[in-house]
């Protein structure tokens, strides 16, 4: 029964991982940029909820909406300042440009918030069935993740703007010839990517303690998930997140928890080598 509890916990967290990875993979899909500032943005999302909740007592889920909007704006700003100039340069430039943002956020964040772990003291009770206890916040986080995924899907496939994003991802030059303002679409896509990171950070804040540095762990997980689901495939990311959550729930039943990352990153390298398009064969 303990096993089942781990499994459910793993799955619920997997949804949140999925949202984080979705942001990373969306940015990669649209502009071939690996965003190394993803982790700090996740941490900033957590801190956004923390500050709004502890200072003015705002409900964490309302705070999440505020954080999401701020994340969108921050992402667009980041794109305009740091990415736009090097978008066509070799990978090294965009990798280092986003890493420079990572350093800037971590540096300022550490100076302001120090690295003492923070928690958002908020609870939605828990559901118990026999020996299995599920935290309410985790259920809500999973539901919120499904909602966000649905929203992203509708945006990408049912709106004109979403169509533009897909067109730019498919072939930027051709999209430009069709009169799509590709620079603005790229900025928007980067904004949506960071918005997703901020949302996942907000959800994480409701059930895990965090510091400004803790985003790094989720960033690495996002890489693994992104590759599992196929880089550039936002919906595959959710599935990848569930797989990773499941693994994290199941592996500790057989070996000590410290072996989990060995399997995770081993799997990551194997998938990269054997099926770089991901388990679900993303269209490029």
């Amino acid at each position, binding site marked *: 029964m303990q096993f089942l509890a781990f499994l459910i916990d793993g799955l619920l967290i997997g949804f949140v991982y999925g949202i984080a990875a979705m942001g990373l993979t969306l940015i*990669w899909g649209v502009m*071939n940029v*690996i965003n190394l500032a993803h982790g700090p943005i996740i941490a900033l999302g957590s801190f956004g909820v923390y500050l709004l909740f502890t200072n003015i007592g705002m409900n964490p889920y309302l705070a999440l909406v505020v954080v999401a909007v701020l994340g969108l704006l921050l992402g667009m700003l980041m794109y305009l300042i*740091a990415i736009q*100039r*090097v978008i066509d*340069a*070799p*990978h*090294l*430039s965009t*990798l*280092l*440009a986003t*890493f*420079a*943002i*990572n*350093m*800037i956020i*971590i*540096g*300022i964040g*550490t*100076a302001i918030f120090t690295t003492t772990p923070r928690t958002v003291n908020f609870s939605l009770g828990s559901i118990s069935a026999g020996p299995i206890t599920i935290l309410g916040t985790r259920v809500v986080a999973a539901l919120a993740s499904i909602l966000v995924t649905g929203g992203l899907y509708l945006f990408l496939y049912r709106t004109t703007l979403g169509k533009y994003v897909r067109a730019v991802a498919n072939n930027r030059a051709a999209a430009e010839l069709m009169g799509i303002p590709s620079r603005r679409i790229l900025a928007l896509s980067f904004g949506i990517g960071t918005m997703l990171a901020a949302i996942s950070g907000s959800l994480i804040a409701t059930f895990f303690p965090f510091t400004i540095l803790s985003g*790094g762990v989720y960033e*690495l997980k996002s*890489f*693994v998930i992104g*590759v599992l689901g196929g*880089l550039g495939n936002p919906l595959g990311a959710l599935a990848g997140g569930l797989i990773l959550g499941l693994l994290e729930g199941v592996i500790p039943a057989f070996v*000590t928890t*410290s*072996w*989990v*990352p*060995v399997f*995770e*990153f*081993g799997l*990551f*390298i194997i998938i*990269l*080598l054997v099926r*770089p398009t991901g388990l679900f064969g993303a269209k490029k």
Partner: protein
Amino acid sequence: MNRWRNPGLWLTLIVVVLVGLFPVFTGKASTREVIFTMLLSVVLASSLNIILGYTGYVSFGHVVFFGLGGYVGLYLMSVGVSLWLAILAGGLSAAVLAFLLGKAILRLRGAYFALATIGVNEAMRAFINNFQPFGGPTGISLHFNVYQDYGGATQALWITYVLLVILTVAAILLSYVVKTSKFGLGLVAIREDEDAAEVMGVVTPNTKTWAYVLSAILPGMVGVLYYFKNGNVEPADAFRLHFSIEFLVMVMLGGFGTVTGPILGAVGYQRLRGFLLTNELFKNIQLSVAGVLLLVIILFIPGGAVGWLRKRFPVTRKVLP
């Protein structure tokens, strides 16, 4: 041969050796420590430059070779092997790992390779963390007696230092030889256009793998020196992703794909870091200041210091390898 007549190379080597031997003559331990860190960075940045700058493959996990070398070296020394053999073993183990990894992940291109190296780094750290012969999460600590064989701890530190100076010269020479050889030309061809290079007769899989091996040997060797000096090695320290990225920054700062660039970059970065860490105003946000600087370089001077000089003053192309 003509390539040995380059004044820039000899000037660089003379300066490095003079600076390197300076603390040996003055005998001051504090200057030695400062220069130790710099020379270490020079070795690591120059080595990384072979795969990053010449070949154009972004490796985020180069610290793996440094850490693995340190682990193998300390493990051997803790069972009684001498420092000299341990250093060779450290370099060899890093080379073997690079060869095996190269065979596997160098098939990936661009960002996929970069991601794979991050994965290798994390997998390695997690694995060593669970690997009991290497001490698991607590790592390996050298017994104090080990240093007695080298004339006590103080003497051992000086031996380590002189060895590092020698390895630094080796790293610069290696970097220069690769750059000016036909092999290096093949690497640059791969960087510019891998498919075209293949058509022109460069056996790309082998060439890339050997470049990776060459860029791993010296980090493995100085890893032994660094952790021998430290006395212990732990998984969290030995495989820190951040450390790898610092080398990337050094290479970019100085100018990737040049011999002198990583040297200047390494020295410049360490000087800057030292300045920021001790400055009242920047002490708390030194990481941010370094980040802003990096961003400015990436956006406006993508060639780094040496790249900029070579572009701005064409005459320097002859003397700045």
